[in-house]
């Protein structure tokens, strides 16, 4: 069902993300810390509308390549990391559902916290992904968008 033997796991998913599956998957007997970040769809937006749903689209292939770059960059910076998992949703994400989940284990907690923050920051800067905000009666591309940056420069 998932790549147990690996230490990294990235995916672009069209079905609801399951943070608990990622948390369990990264847990390792030599690691005392697991940090799991969920970026969830929230009601407020840059446009002032009451958001009911987000719609994400991407090129799976390009997004996966960049997600792998993000993980590789985190491992260079924090060689102590145990397992790293990053999954991003595409398609319709309802309020309170996760759009992105990052789970990281490490022997000690400091690296896990730092690496999880680095990964979500870098996903936002470097992974090709476009978000449409949907409200009652309308929708628009997110106005909180910025030029894509290479992972090495993020």
């Amino acid at each position, binding site marked *: 069902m998932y790549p147990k033997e690996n230490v990294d796991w990235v995916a672009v998913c069209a079905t609801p993300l399951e943070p608990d599956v990622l948390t369990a998957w990264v847990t390792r007997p030599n690691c005392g810390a697991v940090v799991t970040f969920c970026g969830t769809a929230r009601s407020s937006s840059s446009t002032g509308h009451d958001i009911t749903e987000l719609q994400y689209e991407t*090129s799976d292939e390009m997004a996966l390549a960049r997600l792998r770059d993000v993980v590789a960059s985190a491992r260079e910076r924090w060689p102590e990391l145990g397992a790293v998992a990053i999954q991003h949703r595409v398609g319709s994400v309802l309020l309170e559902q996760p*759009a992105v989940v990052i789970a990281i284990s490490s022997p000690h907690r400091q690296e896990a916290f730092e690496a999880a923050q680095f990964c979500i920051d870098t*996903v936002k800067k470097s*992974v090709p*992904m476009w978000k449409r905000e949907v409200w009652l009666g309308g929708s628009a591309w997110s106005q909180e968008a910025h030029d*894509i940056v290479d992972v090495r420069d993020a």
Partner: protein
Amino acid sequence: MSRILLLGPAREAAGVGHDDIDGASVAEVLRVAVARYGPAFEEVLSVSKVWVNGEPCDDDHPVGRQDEVAVLPPISGG
């Protein structure tokens, strides 16, 4: 003949997600694309990054039938 990949707002403005376009360089492909998709696409293109085969690329980069030119508007993941 290269393949052009249009993502997010670029896809919406062009009305298609991918297409086949003649042109010997990135700049030529984009010129044809603007002529084909019109001013809404041109506006999105003006704020977009262009990659060839999944990597950032200059406008004068030569392209052929195996190449994929992707138009990436400002991103909004996470």
